[in-house]
Structure formats: C-alpha cells, structure tokens
C-alpha cells in the first residue's frame, strides 16, 4: 500500500512539473507583452522597460521558469501583474465560491443522473427509459451559457425566485448549480444505466432473484453497490474538473470563482495567475484520481492496489 502511494505521488509530481513547464512556455509563446499590458499604451518605453526589469521579464526564459519554481516550492505563487495582489489571496478569495458551485452542481448532477440511470436500467427499452434518456441527452446538448441565460431570464427576472447572478448565499447558488447539474446529469444517467444493466446480468443477481429476494432489495442492496462504482470514478474526476474552473457558468452568472479568474488572467496575460490556476486545476485532477483509486479498494475489495 505504502509503495503504491509513494509511486503514485512520484508520478503526480512529474505530471505537475510537466504541466508547469508547458503552461509557462505557452504563456510566452503567445504574442503580447505583460509589461505593456500593465502600464498601458501611454507609458514611455523607459517605464515599460523598468516594469519588465522589476518583474524579471528581461531574464532568459529558463531563468524565469526556475525562479518561478523556486518561489513555488517556498509556497509563493507570486503577485498578480494585473491586480497587484498576491496570487494566493486572489485564489483563496474565489476558491470557496468555486468549491460551493462545484459541489452544488455535482449534487444536482447526481440528483438527476442517478434516478434517471436507475429508471433507464430498470425499465430498459421501455417508454420511461426512452423518456429519461431523451431528457438527459437534451439537457447535455444545451449550451450552458444559453441555459444559464434562460434560467436568469425566466426564473430570476420574471419570477423573482432567485437573484440575477452574483454571490451572497445559497439563493445565489441555486441557478448556476442547476445549470451545471442539468448539463452534466446525462453522464451519470448513461454510466449508471450501463453499469446497472451489466450488474443485472451477473450470476449473483440471478441467484438472489432465484432465491426470492425482493426486487427492491436486489436492486439497491446487491446491484446498486457495484453498479455505482463507475459513477464514483467519474464523480471524482468530475468534481476536480469543476473545481478547476467552470468558466462559462461563472461568467454567465457573474459568479466570482477561480474559472472566471483564469479567464480574466488569460485575457490580461497575467502569467502568475495563469500558472497558478492551471496548476491548481492539475493538482485537483491528480489528487482526485489518486483518491478515487484508493476509494476503489474500499468499495470493491476485489480490486487490489498492486
């Protein structure tokens, strides 16, 4: 177990270093001068050069990268070029919002996806299967920004049930979370359906049924525990992706999260913030993968870490 964890952690560090290098190179491959962006078009070349020097942008690329990584290892993500605030402060201020939104969206995904998946599996190739499959696919097909705007217009503006965007409590969270959930629920519906159908074909389910175990108990006690495993895997990945940034949703709902921060930093060529948000998303994916692998073992003892 320990060897496995150490091996996975080593791999994760290599992945993160690779991502940091690629991101760093990409930000420099894009045309544009962060120093000019900071001081504006009216500043003299002297001031632009001074800013470039102060930020260390006049040093060779590899030195800049090493300096960045050196600071990173000391827990220093640097200062935002655009906001003049520590990058960590910016992320910390938004992380809570994004975590709430991601969690809220995930709950809605599960709340829709799991029942829909079960209905599809239990009523396979019946009308109700077709109806829920259609609804889930329809939800998935909707552009998130369009769905978001429709909810804002009809539910927030017309009905006054929720605020038009922003943050400030659970009421502000409902519409963006529902948007996320509707768009993402189809994955869970499909996963649960396929997985449950496979489990229903297993010998132990047939045996249980032959022994007269009530259908409800067969479904939820015997089948569901195994049928849910792929969904757990996906849920881990999903929430890490959501934490990494739900850019469109945050934009539409004027929701100050990490995704919106990443979007603005790319527009402003704010390299320290771009690096931090990309690395953060990468950390979430790597950690989520790792945790899911461990969880596997607990949910299904047949899976061994070796």
């Amino acid at each position, binding site marked *: 177990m320990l060897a496995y964890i150490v091996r996975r952690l080593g791999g994760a560090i290599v992945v993160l270093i690779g991502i940091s290098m690629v991101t760093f190179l990409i930000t420099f491959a894009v045309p544009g*001068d962060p120093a000019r962006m900071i001081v504006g078009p009216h500043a003299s070349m002297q001031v632009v050069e001074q800013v470039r020097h102060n930020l260390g942008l006049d040093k060779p690329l590899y030195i800049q990268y090493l300096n960045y990584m050196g600071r990173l290892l000391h827990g220093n993500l640097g200062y935002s070029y655009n906001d*003049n*605030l520590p990058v960590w402060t*910016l992320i910390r201020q938004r992380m809570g919002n994004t975590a709430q939104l991601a969690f809220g969206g995930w709950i809605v995904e599960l709340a829709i996806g799991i029942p829909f998946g079960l209905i599809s599996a239990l009523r396979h190739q019946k009308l109700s299967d077709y109806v829920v499959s259609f609804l889930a696919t329809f939800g998935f097909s909707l552009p998130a920004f369009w769905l978001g705007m429709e909810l*804002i*217009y009809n539910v927030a503006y017309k009905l006054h049930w929720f605020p*038009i965007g922003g943050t400030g409590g659970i009421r502000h969270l409902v519409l963006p979370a529902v948007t996320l959930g509707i768009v993402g629920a189809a994955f869970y519906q499909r996963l649960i359906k396929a997985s449950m159908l496979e489990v229903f074909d297993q010998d132990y389910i047939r045996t249980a049924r032959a022994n007269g175990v009530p259908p409800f108990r067969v479904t939820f006690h015997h089948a569901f525990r195994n049928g849910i495993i792929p969904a757990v895997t996906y849920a881990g990945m999903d929430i890490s992706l959501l934490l990494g940034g739900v850019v469109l949703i945050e934009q539409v709902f004027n929701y100050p999260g990490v995704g919106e921060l990443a979007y603005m930093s790319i527009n402003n060529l704010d390299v320290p913030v771009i690096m931090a948000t990309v690395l953060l998303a990468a950390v979430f994916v790597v950690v989520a993968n790792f945790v899911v692998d461990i969880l596997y073992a607990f949910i299904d003892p047949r899976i061994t870490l070796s």
Partner: protein
Amino acid sequence: MSAKWKSAVAVASSALVLAGVLAGCGSSGSGNNATGSGASSNNGTATSSGSTGNTAGQTQPTSGGTIQIDMDQDFSHLDPALAYDIIDWEVLEQIYTPLVSYKPGTTEIAPLGATSWDVSSDGKTYTFHLRPDMKFSNGDKVTAQSYIDEFERVLSKTINSPAESFIDPLIVGSTAYHNGSAKTVTGLKAQGDDTLVIQLTKPEPFFLNVLAMPFFSAVDQSYINSIGDKAFDHKPMGSGPFEQKSYQPGNELVLVKNPNYFIPGTPKLDEVDMVINSNLQASALKFKQGTSAFISWNSSIDSQDFVSMMNDPQYKNDFYKQDEVATYYIALNTKPNSPIRNKLVRQAINMAIDKQKLVKLLNGRAVATNQILPPAMPGYEKTLPANVDYQYNPTKAKQLLQQAGYPNGFTVDMVSSNNSTVELLTQSIQSDLAQIGITVKLHPESESSWLQDNTDLKYPMGFDDWFQDFPDPYDFLDVLLNGDEIGQNNNANYNNPTVNKELAQAATMPNGPERYALYSKIQNQILADAPWVPLYNPVQYAIVQPWVKGFYMSPVLQDPLQNLWVAPH
C-alpha cells in the same frame, strides 16, 4: 488610449463636485447645479425631455440611501498613480481630489483642490492656492505636500506609473528625481500648507488638463507608509466625496460617504455598491428589475437590449447620451514593403469604406467621421477642405488604385482585437475593400496581442481607437502621429518632418484660436498623407432609473455619483 485604457478616455479627472466647488462654495445645492448642467449641456444631454424631467420633478435633493451599479469588469488599480482605466476612474474620481477638474458637462477647467491659481507670464510657473479646509477621510489635513507626494510617486521607479511621461521632463527636476540622482523634485515647492508652486521646463498650454487626471491627486503619505504601496492599490484613502468601505476583487466594491468631505451636504448618497458583472444581458435585466441605478460609463447596454429599450415607452425617456471624445480608425502603416506605402492607395482605402454602414452596425451609437480630431476637440473643422474630405466613393477609389498601379488590387493583412463588435466592423470593412479589388486578411487577436502587434507595427493595417486623456488636440495629433511616437502610439508609422516641427510649435503655444488653427492645419496635412482612415466617433448612452436624480453625462468625467440622490420609489 486604446480599448482597455478606454479610459483615459472619456475622462480626465476627478470629479467633481464641482458643482459646489465652482460656486466657491460649499453650497449644499450641488445636486441642483448638476441637474442644471446635465440638462443644458450641449454634449451630455438627456435624449428626451422626459429624462430632463427626471430631475426637474424634484425640488429638494434628499440625503441618504444606497444605490447599486454594475461594473463590466473588475478594477485593475485603485492607486491613483497606477489607475488608467475608466472603470478604475469611476471609483477614483470619488475618492481623490486633484487640484483642478471640469465644470459638469463641459471641457472647461474648474477649481477643485485648488480654489485658484496664478500662471507666470512665461507660462512656466504655476502657483496653486489650495482649499484650507480639505481633509482626508481619516481626518488628516490635505496640504501642498500631499500633492507633491503624489507627483513623486508618479515619478518613482518603484511605482512605475503610466503617467510618468506626462510630467517628466516637463516639471523642473523630474528627470533627476526619476533617475534617482535627486531626492526631491526641484520644480515642486510647498509654501506653507496651502500653496503649491510648480515650475515647468517649458510652457505647456494643456498642463491644467494633465493635472485634472486622477494621477495627480492629493495622497496621505503617512497612511501609505503605514500599509505599503501594494496594499494601497486596494485600500485607497483620499479626500474625495466618498471613501472605500470594502473591496472584494472580482465581486464587489463598496463606497460610503466621506464624513470629512469639504463640501457640506455632498455627497447625498450614503453608499454606492459597485458589483462586478461582465454579463451585459444580466446587467440589463438587473436594471429592468430595478436592482441597479443606472448603466452608464460603468458598463454598456447590451446591443439587443439597447434597441428594445430605446423603442420601449417604459424606458425610452430614461436615456442620456454623450458624444465621446474619441476616434476609431484604421492605421495604415506608411513604411512597410506593401502597396499601403503608396499614398494613392491609402487615399483609395479612405474612399472605399462605407462608414455609415459601420454606424448602423453599432445601432447608431456612433457618428461617422473623416477627421482625426473628434468634434468636441479644439481644432476640429466643421468643414474639411475638399482635397482631404474623403467621402465614400468606391468608383473614385478604384480609379485611384489604378492610378497607383494596382488595377487588379492586392492582398493585405489587417489586425484588430477579437472583440465581437470589432469583428463585425472589420468584416464590413473587408467586404467594402473587396469591392475595389483589395483582399483583406483579418487577424483578430486577444487584446494583449493586438496591443503588442500594433506597437510593433507588425501588420500593414490595424483597426484601432483612441480616447482622449484630456481635451486638447495635443493628445490626438502629437501623441498618435508625431514621428517620435513610432514604437509607442504612432501605429501608422507616420513620420513627416514638417508635421513634427509644427506639432512641437503648437505644443508650447498659448491656448487660443491661433494654436487651434495650427492644429487644424496640421490635421489637414496629415489627412492629405492619409496614414489613417478615420471611421467614427463613438456615442455613449446611459440609462438611468427615474428615481435617480441629479444625473448628467460629461465629455471628460465619469458618472457624477457625488451629485446623485434618490427619490422615494
């Protein structure tokens, strides 16, 4: 200034308040003054009598209340030495006090931090007499040294202010201070607490306009020292009508009334909540719902909502409009090895673009132009000489192209920002130029890339814009088309020694008809060389709740928050 720095744009200064200040005054009737100015201004008018009635119905301004407005982007800087953006200045004009500002709704300089000033006969020494009753919101007294401290911050190499070039080398000793070879700026002297003397190396007729920008406001150095320069960028503290209560980046900034403000009874509002919201459609819905007080310089009215609300009896009387002192144009790089270097080709391009079509694409929120200078700028010509007044004439454009040796046209690259509206306009331009045989390859780019490629003169053509820093023709003709500006703001790579010489001459002449006539002459010479295709001057529209009183628009200032009050609704 270009898009992001649209700023400087519209504006130039802090505000305000002027209503009362002008009167000398400290009058409690600032709201009334503002109302009068807004309603009668030539530029910043309500679009209908209904809007004027907005304020006319209220005889007595009332104090108190909170309004909420949406900002279409987050604030970049709140340090007056660094902020250079209309969104930032929407706040800074409320928090800080420059020496001078503008009369509401006009481009006329008016007292603010200084009640009066004297200018020496050679135009090189300014003596400002400050208000003796000015205090920062923390209670500290504002003195002449408070202004000197800010000038020194702008010149400091550790601050790296974008405004450094406005006063270096203009102020005596500024370069030595900037280079670190002097500990003080010899041209800045405080005579007691309330007199500030500024010595210039040469007369600059628009120096007061420069001082009206928030860069040169009073700051409390002891406060800055206590929190540090970086923190000061997010915790501003000044002597303006409001002070900052809180700021959550990306979310909200809250202003509250400054109890120490030097005009009694101003501001009327207790609190202004500025919510950052880049979703313009959602902003329009919030306005319709009555949540936000207005959509003005702080944001934009979404295109679809603009059309529908203009035609809606419920809203059409709530609009105000203001011609912006700005010009959108195509820079034609006069030097590269491409057909664009040929003057006849550049003139042909000027005649081939249907600017009225661009105005239609902007829902009428613009006025087509053939000039570099916007209408509100001194030097603007009501009628251009015929030889440089390039009217839309594709037939003649094609003839010019033939004359230039390109009967079959050519292919050329044009860069622009990837803003969706700009892309719509550049596609229209592409289609117009195709009519005379010129194939335009469009290069829409992110803002940072576009700015860089413009400065680097990477493409023969570039879609560009410039918003005034201050209302003086220097800020357009000299800043954008002087040969010295190549590599900075001269995106046409234009360098005419005669023009450069005349620009230098105009830059130090006393203000008056002679100076402005010289600028008109320079403009005509530049238009004859055709390094630009002037396209249009934008028009800013605002929509204001009927219960918000005291609103007006100005060609140089941001929204008059200090003069607003709310009626029961």
